[in-house]
């Protein structure tokens, strides 16, 4: 670990803190409707779609709108990918996307996952990238933000189960937050050297005289929104390790920063909406504690390097001309600090884009991204999904605290009783159930085992990571698993759908149930949710729930691999 590395990590954290409030305040105004500078555009969209923007929807109707929008947009994407060869903006003459991949891709992008079992540059036409994938990058992010805001409204008011208007939240989140930020970021990325064109692929002659085809395309516009919307994936197969996708140290920092800036701002927005800003900051603090713990652990593991490399004569000590540590699978332009910071941020958020290959991290370094997703990606998290995931854990925390002191639990003035806890438990249990059942199936079925690139515990880690990634709607890959098969495309596609919608529904139900409850004033028996004690309890609940659920699987994967690495055995 170097002072330079730590300075970059601390600068990243400080800037995140600095932008949380301004962006949070802006988003409050977006979702309370007071920001009107794009009102004419809004009116046209509502009129064209037959939406009544004044309707205050019951949570069931809000959830219905979200599901309807998702199924229609997913089917349109499926059909468009299957017809890609007959559609324009396909200068490379790419054929139709295979049916299994079209299903998985449509599911993956609809759910903000962006798991890709293909190389973008040789599979997707420019039209598919821009009209299908980029469209979902905006709308899936806006849907997540809408759902989080709906839950916040349920907590903040008593409205007979009504949570606002899904269509209005979707449109306003896209128009006022995602489009302007993505536009500005895309311009900066272009200035930094990220490509944005519709040119034919270029055939270049390398220094050795070989011919190499260089993929082109509208990359910057796609990258800006996939980072800001915590969608992830990559325009190119190696994501942001590709110089055309991530050209400079500044583009690297901005792409990495874009991962967490909206989720961090939304935490402030939540505090404002529920009129308890201290609670918003308490959630922010809990998120930051786990985020920093993850960065530190991964940085330590990667900077320490692989003892097997050292035993074979590789210099793993950092010096002026050697980054030291474990540089396998890392971009030399970015080094260890920027690789682990990205890996941590991308899996704290539900992003999944990478600038280094997680499969090549040391066992403990690779376990950090895995655990981050398994904790539910509530550490700032995906845009919207991170916030509502953290709120679910906060409700669970006050419930446990209430049991400890023998009082009816309350969260921000709302009583937490049987029906609320049922929804929280559905939310908490569905996630590991999907991951562990699908992983167990794949660890015994021949079709599942055939996808492994490595044997032993590392092979299990590859399978576990894949299902963790898709169910957590992350989309990052351990890079070792061959996911482009009938079995994996279908099962991983289903995993993304379950991980998104089977968790969103009970979350919106919780919002609806809380919106039916009256707001009780704080009393002496109310567990305070603004204190360091609450932060400690919340972090403990997150870690304990995650550890109890996934520790056995982790023991058979990265943990045993780490111990065997010490004994000189590699997989």
């Amino acid at each position, binding site marked *: 670990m170097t002072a330079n590395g730590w300075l970059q990590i601390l600068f990243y954290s400080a800037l995140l803190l600095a932008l949380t409030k301004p962006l949070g305040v802006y988003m409050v105004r977006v979702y309370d409707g007071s920001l009107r500078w794009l009102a004419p555009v809004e009116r046209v969209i509502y009129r064209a779609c037959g939406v009544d923007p004044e309707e205050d929807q019951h949570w069931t109707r809000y959830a219905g709108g979200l599901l309807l929008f998702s199924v229609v947009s997913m089917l349109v994407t499926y059909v468009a990918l299957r017809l890609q060869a007959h559609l324009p903006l396909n200068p490379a003459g790419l054929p139709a996307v295979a049916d*299994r991949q079209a299903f998985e891709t449509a599911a993956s992008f609809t759910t903000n996952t962006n798991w890709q079992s293909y190389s973008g540059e040789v599979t997707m036409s420019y039209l598919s990238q821009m009209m299908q994938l980029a469209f979902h990058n905006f709308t899936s992010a806006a849907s997540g933000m809408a759902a989080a805001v709906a839950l916040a409204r349920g907590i903040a008011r008593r409205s007979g189960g009504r949570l606002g208007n899904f269509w209005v939240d979707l449109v306003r989140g896209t128009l006022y937050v995602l489009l302007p930020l993505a536009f500005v970021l895309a311009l900066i990325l272009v200035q930094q050297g990220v490509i944005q064109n519709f040119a034919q692929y270029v055939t270049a002659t390398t220094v050795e005289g070989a011919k190499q085809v260089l993929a082109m395309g509208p990359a910057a516009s796609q990258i800006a929104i996939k980072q800001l919307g915590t969608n992830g994936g990559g325009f190119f197969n190696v994501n942001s390790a590709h110089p055309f996708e991530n050209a400079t140290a500044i583009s690297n920092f901005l792409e990495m920063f874009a991962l967490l800036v909206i989720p961090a701002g939304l935490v402030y927005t939540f505090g404002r909406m529920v009129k308890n800003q201290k609670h918003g900051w308490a959630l922010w603090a809990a998120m930051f504690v786990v985020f920093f713990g993850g960065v530190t652990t991964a940085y330590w593991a990667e900077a320490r390097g692989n003892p097997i490399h050292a035993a074979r004569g590789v210099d793993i000590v950092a010096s002026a001309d050697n980054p030291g540590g474990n540089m396998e699978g890392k971009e030399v332009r970015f080094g260890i600090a920027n690789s682990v910071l990205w890996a941590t941020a991308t899996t704290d958020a539900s992003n999944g884009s990478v600038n280094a290959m997680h499969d090549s991290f040391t066992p403990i370094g690779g376990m950090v991204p895995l655990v981050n997703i398994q904790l539910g990606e509530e550490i700032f998290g995906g845009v919207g999904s991170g916030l509502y995931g953290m709120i679910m854990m906060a409700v669970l925390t006050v419930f446990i605290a209430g049991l400890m002191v023998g009082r009816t639990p309350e969260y921000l003035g709302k009583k937490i009783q*049987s*029906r609320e806890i049922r929804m929280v438990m559905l939310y908490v249990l569905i996630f590991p159930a999907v991951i562990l059942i699908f992983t167990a199936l794949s660890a015994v079925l021949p079709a599942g085992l055939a996808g492994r690139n490595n044997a032993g515990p590392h092979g299990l880690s590859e399978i576990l990571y894949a299902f963790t990634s898709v169910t957590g709607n992350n989309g990052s890959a351990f890079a070792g698993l061959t996911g482009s098969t009938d079995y994996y495309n279908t099962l991983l596609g*289903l995993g993304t759908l379950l991980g998104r919608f089977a968790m969103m529904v009970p979350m919106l139900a919780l919002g609806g149930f809380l919106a039916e409850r009256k707001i009780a004033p704080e009393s002496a028996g109310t567990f305070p949710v603004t204190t360091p004690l609450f932060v400690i309890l919340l972090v403990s609940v997150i870690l304990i729930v995650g550890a109890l659920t996934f520790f056995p699987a982790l023991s058979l994967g990265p943990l045993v691999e780490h111990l065997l690495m010490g004994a000189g055995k590699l997989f």
Partner: protein
Amino acid sequence: MRDVAYIALTVAFFALMIAYVRGCERLGREATGEEERP
């Protein structure tokens, strides 16, 4: 044929989710009844 299967799978999943919404609503109602019982 496989296209039809994948489209049917997608539609079936979202139909299941609509039923899930109704199930959660019913679960909430039942729990409210339990809370209100003396």
